[in-house]
Each structure stands twice: as structure tokens, then as C-alpha cells.
């Protein structure tokens, strides 16, 4: 069984009317880093995950969650 890291960054960005660049600037990373996390291509370090959650003022579990995927 594989576990995938799901995230709701896009939703939170929409709620706060922010672009990826705005969020990147707010937490001090590059825009590409945000976009790759958002589409699930890059698993962020715990530091980045916590920074994102702190920025949106929510627990980290609200932004990131694990989904189990059955192996075919």
C-alpha cells in the first residue's frame, strides 16, 4: 500500500485570494516550489509544510493529509 501526500493549498490560496507567487513570497520559497507541492510532484519538508500551515493559520493536517492507495 502506497501513501500519497494530498494537499489543499489551492483551496486555501483561493480563499485568501492569493497567487502562487504571493504565497511563495510570504513563506520565503520559490514559486516553482509552491506549484510543484500543489500538484503533488514535490513532497515538502516539514519546515515548509509548517510554514504554509502557519501562514494560513490552520493546523498542518488541514493543509496536508495522507491518502492510501492500493497497489495494482
Amino acid at each position, binding site marked *: 500500500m502506497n501513501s500519497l501526500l494530498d494537499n489543499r493549498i489551492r483551496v486555501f490560496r483561493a480563499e485568501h485570494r492569493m*497567487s*502562487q*507567487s504571493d504565497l*511563495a*513570497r*510570504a*513563506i*520565503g*520559497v*520559490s*514559486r*516553482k*516550489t509552491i*506549484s*510543484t*507541492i500543489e*500538484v503533488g*510532484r*514535490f513532497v*515538502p*519538508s516539514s*519546515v*515548509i509544510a509548517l510554514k504554509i500551515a502557519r501562514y494560513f493559520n490552520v493546523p498542518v493536517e488541514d493543509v496536508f493529509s495522507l491518502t492510501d492507495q492500493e497497489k495494482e
Partner: protein
Amino acid sequence: MERQHERAELQDRVHSLLALGALPFSAILVLDAFSAGTGNAGVVNALSWVAKGLLGLVVVVLTIYIVRKWRAGGARAPETESFSTTILFKAATLSWGATFMLLVQFYDRLFRGNGILGIAGLPLEHSGEIVAAFMLLVFSISYFGMNLSLQWASGEKVADE
């Protein structure tokens, strides 16, 4: 955070330029080896100068970005905290692995007799250049390949919205 963000953006560009610079560097090594091996100075030399020009351009831009990054200062983020750093390391690992596999798997064909493309017929220095060029080429292609695959992934749009 603004300065840290600027620094992170510059770091992404530095990584892309490093991978880009590997291409003309690889071309210079191959052309140098073949010009020495074949003695055909004309076209090979011209191509070599074009590659040197491109590499020079990359080095100049790279230097500017590194100086700007240094001036941006700010808190240094851990090295793994960016996508470009991660794929740069992956590309480097892949190129080392591919070169190792090439040497181990195709040792006979590369170096017995005249070898593939006459590599074994070249002086040792130039055979080494061919192997280094292969490593740089794999490094560059895999870096940009991973970058491109991101854009194709699930048809998701990566561009800023």
C-alpha cells in the same frame, strides 16, 4: 521573507543555468576529443568555438545570478527545501549511475579494439573527455526532462494562476 523568496528564485535560476551549461561543456569535450582523433580541424573547430561562446554566455549570466543571490542575503534555507535542488541532486545521481552502468555494462564494446566511435583509439585523455561528456549530457537532459515531466503530469497546469 521577501529576501528569502528572492534568494530561492535566484537559486532556481542558478540550478537551471548549471544544467544548461552542461550541454555546451559536453559538446566542447566531445569536439575536442574528435578533433584530436580525426585531425579534422575545420568544422569541428568552428563548432567548438560556438560551444565555447555559449558556455561563456552561461558563465557570465550564472555569475550575475550568484552575485545577486549573495547580495539578497536573508536566512539560508536548508538545501533540500526547493524542487529545483531536489531534481538537481536526482539528475546528478542519475548521470553518475548511467555513466557507471555504461562503463560496467559496455566496457568490452567501448574499449576493445578501436571501441565504439573509435573511443579506444583516442589518447586516454580524450577517452576520458567522451565519458565526462556523456555524464554531463545525461545530467542536463535528466534535469530538464524532470522539469518538463512536471508540466505534463496529469495535465495539471503548473503556471501561476
